[in-house]
């Protein structure tokens, strides 16, 4: 089955900047494994060291999460579209909002260290 895999922007650097890759596969597992063999740099972003799909990389068949289908064994049909949706966390420059005891200095002092000539 020829299926399309949609590549999210953060991972496109590992697939020659393509936004989608087409592979021949009968299951989700086969499709992803073919993708990772074709683009070896992508492998560590999809699989952990034990070769399991990483839990912060979700795979969707159409608009459905494969964890609620038959996971990686989910069968594929011709022209199916798979999407890789990784966890992203960006938003603000708010650093270390969770207390850790590190860098407890006054924020103004920190900014002054970073930009001494402007402040």
């Amino acid at each position, binding site marked *: 089955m020829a299926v399309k895999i949609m590549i999210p922007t953060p991972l496109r650097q590992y697939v020659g900047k393509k936004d989608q890759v087409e592979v021949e596969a009968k299951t989700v597992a086969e499709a992803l494994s073919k993708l990772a063999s074709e683009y070896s740099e992508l492998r560590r972003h999809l699989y952990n060291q034990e070769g399991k799909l990483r839990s912060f990389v979700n795979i969707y068949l159409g608009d459905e999460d494969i964890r609620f289908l038959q996971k990686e064994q989910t069968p594929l049909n011709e022209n199916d579209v798979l999407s890789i949706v990784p966890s992203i*966390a960006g938003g603000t420059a708010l650093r270390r909002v*969770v207390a850790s005891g590190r860098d407890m200095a006054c*924020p103004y002092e920190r900014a002054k260290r970073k930009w001494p000539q402007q402040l």
Partner: protein
Amino acid sequence: MATATLNPISALSKDEILRYSRHLIMPEVGMEGQLKLKKAKVLCIGAGGLGSPLTLYLAAAGVGRLGIVDFDVVDFTNLQRQVIHGTADVGKSKLASARESIREINPNVEVVGFETRLTSENALQLFEGFDIIVDGTDNFPTRYLVNDACVLLGKPNVYGSIFRFEGQASVFSALQGPCYRCLYPEPPPPGLVPSCAEGGVLGVLPGIVGCIQAMETIKLIIGQGQTLIGRLLVFDALGVKFRELKLRKNPDCPACGTHPTITRLIDYEQFCGIRGEEHTSVMTGIPELTPREVKKMMDENQPFVLIDVREPHEFQICRIPGSTLIPLGEVAKRMHELDSAGEIVVHCRSGQRSARAVEFLMKAGFRKIYNLKGGILAWSDQVDPSVPKY
């Protein structure tokens, strides 16, 4: 806390009717919706990239009480996307700067500022006084903390997240649908995903995602339309593609499943495995040289190779004269170009990526290899201020 005390919450003044007239003439909002907005209490976590458009629009829309949690200070690198702050605000606390901008836009809004870190100790108490929590943070520990606190309190969590050209938005409301942990049970290990500071972000993107969060917040308040509960919106800014994916409640979710194991807030840094991440440059056993020491080696014509492991587009911004560019991703492939017996100094922008390169090369047998402590930022501070910082 500047409150319009003369302004009863159950009615709109003549000025307010004029101000909100474009809302009032829409039947979906009307007087009823506008009064709901006026009574609403929304807490925004972070007054940065997402928090800027979010708080500006919620204030303009007439949300009665707007809480903001942020303890950071405005710096020059924020201005490219954090439009609530201006050039004159650099050096001020983000909270004070945001408060001023909001007062200018809509003095009827009561801004409640919390100049503090959000922690497992204070989150439940801070959230208690608000109806809706909007997550505009930039890191995994805080995202899981915000999620768990919202699940424990039964409050909706309006989610937005960005990375370079990728945006995500949803509404997690565990009473009616899935939570963030149903979507992503675990965060990525540190180091696999670069932070915004390392990876960059297109300035407009948080504007787009933050506005979606503001829209969803307003819809939750006025009870109109279909919110993103149970749906994940994924935005690809490069292809201008919005896609919608189904979010399902995970019955085994540790936070909102049928047998939750998270019954109180935990240690989120430990959960995300990032203790000490900020200090990778002082990883044990990584030899370092200060910028002044390297400058002295240059002045004394000592033979050494200076390697820059940043990306080519960063090399275009500025460089230390005499450095050779080998981007971090190519170090393994190109290490044969280097003499493993010779002296090598490796640097990057801040010293973190170069520490990883030094660690890698040491394992590959390089012995006289050093990390430039503090990278180009420190070089600019201590040796050559003509090298721009970014």
